[in-house]
């Protein structure tokens, strides 16, 4: 069996390099992640937020429907009655404790769907990895946005913060 030097050696190599040459000018597909992020889809579900009304009152009324809808059973809600002197939400009740076990959550968004007041929302911050298991119990203080509309504000990653 004779091996043709042109047909079996040089031509495949050249055609291989031809593909390389054709792709040289193509647009790079790699997203340079820590410096730049890829555009997330509008309904991406990552980090949870407890939102507020424009008046600053919390939307959460402590009904525990999110905890009931959660397939992973990772939400814990403890609610109490609002009083006129201590008013947190416009309804009768509010959540004194609102905890999500972020490590057990599967980000299905059922809590968002179940919420009657639209209090809990899932937004685009995916930088949630951490070193210790204890740090993944997100308390109400961590979840509650500090001002109304914070959850909808464009999210800046931790490495982008460090860069500025």
């Amino acid at each position, binding site marked *: 069996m004779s091996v043709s030097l042109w047909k079996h050696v040089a031509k495949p190599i050249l055609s291989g390099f031809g593909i390389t040459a054709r792709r040289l000018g193509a647009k790079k*597909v*790699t*997203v*340079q*992640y*820590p410096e730049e*992020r*890829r555009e997330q889809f509008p309904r991406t579900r*990552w980090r949870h937020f407890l939102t507020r009304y424009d008046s600053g009152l919390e939307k959460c009324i402590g009904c525990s429907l999110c905890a009931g809808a959660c*397939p*992973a*059973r990772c939400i814990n809600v403890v609610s109490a009655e609002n009083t006129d002197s201590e008013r947190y939400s416009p309804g009768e009740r509010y959540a004194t404790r609102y905890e999500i*076990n*972020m*490590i*057990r*959550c*599967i*980000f*299905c968004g059922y809590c968002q769907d179940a919420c009657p007041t639209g209090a809990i929302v899932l937004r685009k911050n*995916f*930088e*949630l*990895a*951490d*070193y*210790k*298991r*204890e740090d*993944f119990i997100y308390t109400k203080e961590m979840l509650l946005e500090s001002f109304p509309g914070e959850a909808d504000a464009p999210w800046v990653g931790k*490495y982008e913060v460090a860069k500025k």
Partner: protein
Amino acid sequence: MPKRIETVVLHDSSTPVLGDIQKAGNVVVTSIDTLLNQARANSLWPLTFGLACCAIEMMATVASRFDLARFGSEAFRATPRQADVMIIAGRLSKKMAPVLRQIYDQMPEPKWVISMGACASSGGVYNNYAIVQGADQVVPVDVYVPGCPPSPDALIYAVLKLQDKIKKTKFNKIIEITPRNVANEMPVEVLA
């Protein structure tokens, strides 16, 4: 002498987190620390340990769109002898737990573990008799990644977090911290 914080969390990793050891001046080996940590952090070879759907995202992380090779972690090793970091990708069943432990023991020191996804980190939705409720019951985990599954971005973020952690470890202190503590090791026979 470095002051060591005495509270030992069982499921915490054997490698110290920043803040576990208070800073002690060490003139002699401080540059070696930096050198070794840079070398270790920038060539983390992961062990191929895909257990479930998270493994698909792990593969996507190595592919060209996200390109884990930018951080020196592209060489996925099929043998634990050549791996530095074990990415537990997927739910860990109780039958798989002894295997995981054995493979972890076969990895050479220094070694790290990334627990990828809700199932590996805590059991996720599978709160049942078959799934280990957190891989940290079997091996010490360094970085937990939430998500079901975590997107490649989130996994890259975890790798970066691990690199940060490695860069902050003190080489000469690890030796006195990581003697094999038999009491802390879980007997894997119990699970099987």
